[in-house]
């Protein structure tokens, strides 16, 4: 039976290895019925963009706690766009100061989650805002 299932790539760009949040999210998304491709940590934006395209995902979720999100998150969006894959929704999470939020949204991030975000709220955001491609 035809049935679109949401596919999500979860990745940690940059050199930071604090993957507690990413791993908890990976399990949570699986339990929400999504197909989760988890790439682990220490990824370059180039690797993430290439993986997102090969995996034909609907969403790329980035987690970064090192403060390098200002460079890394927009870079992923930019690379996806260059490959004509700007229909992929890119969201991010981590320690993101308020003043960085608007520039990141302007750069094409669709949602940003900071510490304390409930798992349910993330699942809900995806269910509300992401329709698997037709």
């Amino acid at each position, binding site marked *: *039976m*035809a*049935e*679109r*299932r949401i*596919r999500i790539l979860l990745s940690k760009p940059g050199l930071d290895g604090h993957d507690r949040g990413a791993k908890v999210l*990976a*399990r949570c*998304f*699986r*339990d*929400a*019925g*999504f*197909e*989760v*491709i*988890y*790439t*682990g940590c220490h*990824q370059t934006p*180039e*690797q993430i963009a*290439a*993986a997102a*395209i*090969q*995996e*034909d995902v609907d969403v790329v979720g980035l987690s970064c706690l090192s403060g390098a999100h200002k460079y890394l998150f927009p870079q992923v969006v930019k690379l996806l766009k260059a*490959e*004509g*894959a700007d229909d992929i929704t890119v969201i991010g999470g981590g320690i993101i100061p308020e003043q960085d939020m608007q520039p990141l949204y302007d750069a094409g991030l669709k949602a940003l989650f900071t510490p304390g975000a409930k798992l349910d709220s993330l699942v809900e955001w995806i269910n509300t805002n992401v329709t*698997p*491609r037709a």
Partner: protein
Amino acid sequence: MKELGQKVLAGDVRSASRLIRNLEDQIPGTHVAMQEIFTKTGNAHVIGITGAPGAGKSTLTDELVFSWRQRNKTVGVLAVDPTSPFTGGALLGDRIRMLRHAEDKGVFLRSLATRGSMGGISKAVGEGIHVMDAMGKDTIIVETVGVGQQEVEIINHAHTVIVVLVPGMGDEIQALKAGLMEIADIFIINKADRDGAASLYKEVTNMVHMSVTKGGWEIPVLLVESVQEPKKFAESVSAVCDKIEDHYRYLVDKNLLSERLRRKTAAEFNEALWAAILQPVLNDLDAGGEMEKMVDQLLKKETDPYTLAAEVAVRYKNKV
């Protein structure tokens, strides 16, 4: 959809991954693209890698990819992980061990969830192989999940089947008896530095010697060193690569490739028939609510499944 097929033939990754997605999601009309590419397939060497969880299949696959890239071959990988039977979700983590190839244009890696298919491998695997084949990949590796009888289905898709065993898991020999023995073209004893590797090697070698030889192909049992010893690991995997190529040459020389292809083709045709004949019937019964009613009838023991099925067959005979 037709355009999609053309793009796949031109090697476009985005289109190929989309096509595989459409196949997985069973989007109506996907067969148009498949029709487009089918006749152009049949050039790739398809390798199945199977073994218990934790046997080190992904790390081995990663190194095999590396070996073939060194030999200037392009590679496609279909990595299959299980779908959770409770939530329908899946955590696909094989990529994590194959990161270094992410940007290599000569490598296309795609993760698939089993989505509740019975064979331990995703239904989309067979078609996924065609897609990668049509893209022009020289070698396609299918890494499958699980252990036991179900994974023997890999034999329908792969030309060369590698069974990965690892010392200390306890149930290797049981698994062999359960059907893995018959499907293996090459055995690998992975993590050969571990205790028990030597005895496992001996045991498997003995079993291989006692079993019927596959028409002149002597099934090799190869040791692969721990990945924590990068140099030794790379060398031992390169030797595996040599053996796989030997096996392919053997299949070609003995004209056995066509035999395997025949099996695969028959299985696929079977599935295509299912999709073409049975699926529309099921859809129709579902849509009209008739399916529910029939199940009710059966529950009340008003009739039996055989009679009911025969009635349905007669009714739809001229429609499909």
